[in-house]
């Protein structure tokens, strides 16, 4: 039961990677075309990926507590997930801090590009760092890979549905904002 729960939520991490790729694509296309639909796509993908990553982190913490007895083993995947989560959390915070829509979309797109480039570098650094220290060996539930792949596929479909919902919501919010600005200027 515990292993099944861990496989279900822990497979959020590869889905978060896919979401990061979608967010990068959205950001780059936005910077080229300045079409706000792609900015909304980047935001939706980042929010979904971040939620998946948070679920994966919670699953990892709970699993390491029940299996290894400590709350945070400096497991490579867990630490990489935390670092990537922090990077994308900064993206989401930046979006909240800028009011003006065009400036917000442009700055957020730039940060998204930087964030995506940082992910592989961080993953490699953490793997090397871990190899240097003497730490408990990484453990995963038995039968992990087959369970994880099917769960990852399921989570991918859930994430795709969530992204579309968030995209529609962001588009509606933007349309409402545009109407409000037009009404204020009249």
């Amino acid at each position, binding site marked *: 039961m515990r292993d099944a729960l861990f496989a279900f939520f822990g497979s959020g991490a590869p889905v978060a990677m896919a979401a990061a790729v979608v967010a990068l694509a959205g950001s780059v296309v936005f910077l080229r075309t300045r079409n706000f639909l792609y900015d909304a796509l980047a935001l939706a993908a980042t929010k979904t990926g971040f939620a998946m990553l948070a679920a994966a982190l919670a699953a990892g913490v709970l699993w390491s507590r029940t299996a290894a007895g400590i709350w945070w083993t400096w497991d490579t995947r867990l630490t990489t997930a935390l670092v990537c989560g922090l990077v994308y959390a*900064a993206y989401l915070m930046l979006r909240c801090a800028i009011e003006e829509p*065009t400036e917000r979309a442009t700055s957020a797109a730039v940060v998204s590009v930087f964030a995506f480039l*940082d992910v592989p570098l961080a993953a490699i650094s953490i793997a090397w760092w871990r190899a240097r220290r003497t730490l408990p060996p990484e453990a995963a539930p038995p039968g992990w890979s087959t369970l994880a792949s099917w769960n990852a596929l399921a989570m991918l479909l859930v994430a795709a549905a969530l992204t579309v919902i968030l995209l529609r919501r962001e588009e509606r919010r933007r349309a409402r904002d545009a109407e409000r600005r037009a009404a204020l200027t009249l």
Partner: protein
Amino acid sequence: MHYFRQVAVVAFKDLRAELRTKEAINASLAFSIVILLLFSFAFDPSEETMREISGGLLWIVFAFAGTLMLNRSFARELPNDCLDALIAAPLPASALFLGKCLANYVLVLAVELVSLPVFGIFYNVHWARQFPELLLVLLLGTWALTIIGTIFSALTVNIKLREVMLPMLTYPILIPALMSAMQLTTALVGGTPIGADNVDSLKMLIGFDIVFTAVSLVLVETVLVG
């Protein structure tokens, strides 16, 4: 060559402005000395502990003191619409960015080179055993800190929560560079030269510098002009 002259003009302008008032460099130096002092109160430094944590401690001090300086680099241009004047000036945005990066680089390096002897004095560490290689690691790591800090300083210059957003953006993205620099510095301060087990971290530092310098130079026009 005209491009590099423009870069030099911006760099010398910033350096001259900073060295005349010395506000940021004094604050940065004082901050780094205070952090070194606080860490010496935090635990009892024995010989082995010091050798293990020297890299981590030094780079935390450099990152925090450096961010103090980098925050000001574009924020200094806000009064009197100087930033608009610079953006409207007939020089490419990447030249403006590179000039500011170079000025920040020199200033942060100066703070670091003063903090190193202070570290040696407070913690009784012989840090100069592998000094040329330590200097190389300092140069590469400080360039990583400067490039990321300056591009995000340009990005956050007009935000009302600028002082909060800049560290929040910079530190997570700097994690690969900081980890490599910390590992190399710990080894070098401890006396072991850069060998087969350390050269990976050096390659990571160089790769990080190249990738993010390229991306910043491409994207700075978008950031500044919009």
